[in-house]
């Protein structure tokens, strides 16, 4: 009986009349903690800069309750037009990449998979570099769309190539993904080698990933994709859990494995491509956030997906703040900061695993 009692203690069960749902007990607590952390970071991030605003006034400006303040007009401009949109965008990009990475790791049953596994970054980079270095003089608004199309086409090509005998095994996806990514990387490098030096520098900034100078239009563009695809991912959490038990077991449980895997991959690619389109190829968030989230709330996706998304968002808001602060008045692109945080984390993981075995 004691054991039975213990069983119930790890889950929250929600059961109104026609609905039933369960969630790991840790999820709400951790979600609230991450949100609180994000909000504090956001306030400090808005407050920090060449034009300093006190955190207190930042909160009042966000809530629009300090209209009688003498500097209100300046505050409003700096907060609402310059700083808030880029920070909100950083949060959305982080959340999109983390969700995409969680899906990809679930689909491939490989904890080292990331959102860029099936060519999103290679395809987007090649398209963006082609536009920046070779087409030139195109309106800046074209860049996200080109990146998105490049990402989508590459993902489609990899999925098609990995299809064999009516199915696509995770290992084929990984191998073909790596191969095609290398080819695209090589072509991108060649383009950069022979480009005009100023264009190449601009391309490098895009390639390292940044939210510098982004506005509410970018937030809207990414947000409209996320409104569709994030809930779609959450709705498929149980299917993703089942897929994690292996193809045969999943089929035995009545899951239509190929169809679900294709659908989940589409969602993952759409989220990663949308994020890359507005902010360039920011690395490590999609790899690290699911990892840490898994350690916080376990491997079931009902809890893992939201916690991973929130953590990815928080991480990118923090990384953006560090990027703005580290070499002020210059700025480090946020993608460089995530790499500087992410790479040591992974070295630590490998080190720890090696010592365990």
């Amino acid at each position, binding site marked *: 009986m004691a054991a039975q009692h213990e069983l119930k203690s790890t889950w929250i069960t929600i059961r109104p009349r*026609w609905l039933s749902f369960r969630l790991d007990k840790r999820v709400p607590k951790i979600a609230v903690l991450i949100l609180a952390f994000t909000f504090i970071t956001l306030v400090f991030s808005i407050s920090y800069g060449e034009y300093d605003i006190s955190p207190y006034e930042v909160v009042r400006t966000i809530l629009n309750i300090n209209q009688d303040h003498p500097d209100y007009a300046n505050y409003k401009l700096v907060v609402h037009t310059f700083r808030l949109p880029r920070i909100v965008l950083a949060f959305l990009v982080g959340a999109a990449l983390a969700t995409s990475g969680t899906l990809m790791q679930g689909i491939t049953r490989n904890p080292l998979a990331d959102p860029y596994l099936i060519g999103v970054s290679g395809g987007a980079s090649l398209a963006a570099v082609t536009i920046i270095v070779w087409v030139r003089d195109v309106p800046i608004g074209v860049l996200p769309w080109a990146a998105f199309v490049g990402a989508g086409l590459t993902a489609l090509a990899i999925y098609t190539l990995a299809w064999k005998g009516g199915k696509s095994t995770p290992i084929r996806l990984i191998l073909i993904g790596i191969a095609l990514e290398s080819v695209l990387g090589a072509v991108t490098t060649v383009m950069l080698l022979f480009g005009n030096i100023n264009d190449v520098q601009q391309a490098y900034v895009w390639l390292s990933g940044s939210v510098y100078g982004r506005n509410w239009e970018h937030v809207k563009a990414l947000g409209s994709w996320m409104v569709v695809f994030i809930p779609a991912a959450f*709705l498929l959490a*149980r299917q993703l859990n089942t897929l*994690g038990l*292996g193809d045969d077991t999943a*089929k035995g449980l*009545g899951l239509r494995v190929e169809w679900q895997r294709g659908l989940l991959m589409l969602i993952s690619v759409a989220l990663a491509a949308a994020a890359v389109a507005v902010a360039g190829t920011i690395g490590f968030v999609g790899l690290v956030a699911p990892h840490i989230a*898994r350690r916080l709330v376990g491997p079931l996706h009902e809890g893992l997906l939201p916690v991973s998304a929130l953590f990815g968002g928080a991480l990118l808001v923090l990384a953006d703040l560090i990027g703005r602060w580290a070499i002020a008045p210059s700025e480090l692109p946020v993608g460089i900061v995530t790499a500087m945080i992410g790479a040591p984390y992974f070295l630590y993981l490998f080190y720890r695993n090696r010592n365990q075995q």
Partner: protein
Amino acid sequence: MSQLNAHNLTLAYENALIIEGMELTIPDGKITALVGPNGCGKSTLLRGISRLLKPRGGNVLLESQDIWKLPTKELAKRLGILPQGPVAPEGLTVHELVAQGRYPHQSWLQQWSPEDERITHEALEITNVTEFADRPVDTLSGGQRQRAWIAMTLAQDSDIILLDEPTTFLDLAYQIEVLDLLHELNVERGKTIVMVLHDLNQACRYADYLIAIRGGQINAQGEPSLVVTENLVREVFGIDCKIIPDPVTNTPLVVPVGKARKGRLHLPSLNGKHAEPVQNP
């Protein structure tokens, strides 16, 4: 009329034909063991009748319905499968694993009904894994882990359970533990169990019905004590053996002749009704 049977079943991988035109009937409410040498097609057959492998010809029927025409979840409610050597995601607890057996009974609105909870707890109890319900599957011993997976298949609440070599990679004690559990499920819960087994003696002990396969064909089938003969073992496994009654269960016990230590063996007669114990030097 048996629930699960196959007609004119042809199974193949890419261009290798494994089984051709097989007729198969699985007896209801019994333990059936599929035995045969490596590569004979026993695992392929199990995959064929569990919808893991699409037949190239013929069909597999469950209560006269083609299993490929049933909705996937509908089939999963009636037929559970435990593949060989399944691997759980890192950190997944036993309770979480077993709860996933409820997948075919759930929907978007009903993700964790009182019934799901009740049957999951029951599956944990029956397989005796309740005490490690909150431990990650990857920290358990081989036997405990396999019991947890059987609990998951049990939570699926199907009348038929198919298992591919459920005792492979397990120590002897765990093999017996798992087979005893399957026997209990059959006797006490009336589950129809079909399993691929490597060990012919274990098959003789635990199966009510034995299907011996060689080269993609059924060589013999029936109650082990009637089917297992020295001739059959020679034909199917290609070895000479003696068959004696199992001192514990009285089922056939296959003792391969082989070449090792023959000098020390003292066999009473070629008919082999009983054997003297072999003394270790």
